[in-house]
């Protein structure tokens, strides 16, 4: 896919392997994501999509291989890792907003405690971000007082507040009621348009078609296909992908 004269990829996974005990969850994964690129990761349950995402910001360790973010190899632990993690924003399926903090505090915590921003600056930025994702009115509430769709948009704002170089989304709309899915996808599509580099695990084909540059299909811990969205959905190459698509398309 990538030709040699292209600039260094922002996210670069080389021969990454990972086991959970006897289970080989990531098999020799090679994946490059260029600056500004939006990659959708798709695949059957248990194929290793979440593990891949979590490995990229080191929530999960890897056994062999290297992962570099903007040319820097992920350190194993400690302060340096914490800093590099801040370059990688992550949005979880279950939102994971800090339950005891207000919406505003959820968004200002990282900038204040990790980047040393002043409270005033952090709050100004947070309010602008909350406005941008459409939950500006909710700033002083607790997460539990918001709908799932609103919580997920706050989670996106919280990640953006760290000014990450790349954003990872692990099935961001899977835990949402159908009527809330679009409000979250719209924010993500907007983000993609503004040039954010994104890795998105999702089965929302509408999003893949509208916003993705590439679709990566995973099965059994391997990347089986890596294609443009249109090509992948209309003309999958592997039997695994054909089988998978026939299942999700009939639903």
């Amino acid at each position, binding site marked *: 896919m990538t030709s040699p004269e292209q600039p260094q990829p922002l996210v670069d996974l080389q021969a990454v392997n990972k086991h959970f005990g006897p289970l080989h969850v990531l098999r020799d994964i090679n994946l490059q994501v260029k600056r500004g690129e939006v990659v959708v990761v798709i695949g059957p349950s248990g194929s290793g999509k979440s593990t891949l995402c979590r490995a990229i*910001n080191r*929530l999960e360790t890897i056994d062999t291989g290297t992962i570099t973010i903007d040319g820097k190899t992920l350190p194993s632990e*400690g302060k340096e890792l914490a800093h590099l993690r801040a370059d990688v924003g992550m949005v*979880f399926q*279950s939102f*994971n907003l800090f339950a*005891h903090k207000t919406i505003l505090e959820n968004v200002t*915590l990282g900038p204040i*405690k990790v980047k040393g921003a002043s409270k005033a600056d952090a709050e100004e930025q947070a309010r602008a971000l909350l406005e941008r994702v459409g939950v500006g009115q909710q700033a002083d509430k*607790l997460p539990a007082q918001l709908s799932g769709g609103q919580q997920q948009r706050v989670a996106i704002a919280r990640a953006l507040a760290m000014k990450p170089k790349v954003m990872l989304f692990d099935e961001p709309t899977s835990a949402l009621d159908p009527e809330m899915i679009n409000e979250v996808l719209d924010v993500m599509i907007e983000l993609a348009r503004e040039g954010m580099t994104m890795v998105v695990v999702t089965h929302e084909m509408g999003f893949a078609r509208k916003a993705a540059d590439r679709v990566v299909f995973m099965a059994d811990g391997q990347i089986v296909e890596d294609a443009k969205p249109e090509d992948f959905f209309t003309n999958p190459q592997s039997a695994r992908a054909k089988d998978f698509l026939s299942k999700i398309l009939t639903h």
Partner: protein
Amino acid sequence: MDTLINNLDLFVTGFKNTGILFVVSAVFALILGTIVAAMRVSPVPAMRAAGTLYVNTVRNTPLTLILAFFALGYPRLGLPEINFMVAAIIGLSLYTATYVAETIRSGINTVPVGQAEAARAIGLPFGKTLSLIIMPQAFRSVVPPLFSVLIALLKNTTVAAGFSVAEAGAIRANLSERGEPQMVGLLWVALIFIVLVLGVLSTLQRYLEKKWRVAR
């Protein structure tokens, strides 16, 4: 009533010392207990082992033995001298901290892992993840059992009486020296304890539970 009024000096000194023993020991026990709970969930194996060892040894030792050590054994070690009050505070704090640690650790286990992952994902190091995200939520979920530990501590202050700290539990003995009816004295001590527990601690517990209700 006469027993109470005629010997008000005894009651006042007794309960003042009980109060000091309780408040100071509670503060130290909460601090130490929190640190030990943090050690027990730390990623460093040596920290976890040290925390576990401390909890298992001290928690399984009777309080009277711990206090006896500080009152009787410690002075013979040739270390700086400490008075009975300080000895009692150290003993009670070390003992109560193990219960605090276990209570908080059970609270930590109620905090969903996603909270810690989200904290790590925005770049918070382990210590800050623990102190800013996990511990505040853990505390909130263990207010009732934590207060049981504190009530036990309040009652355990009477054990210190056996080691010459003139606290409330010792009032009865002093009363009998003054030729007052022991039974009446004992009832008064018990009554004041109940008032302390119900009036002060339970009120505080209700207040915190209401204030800290974690919505999920």
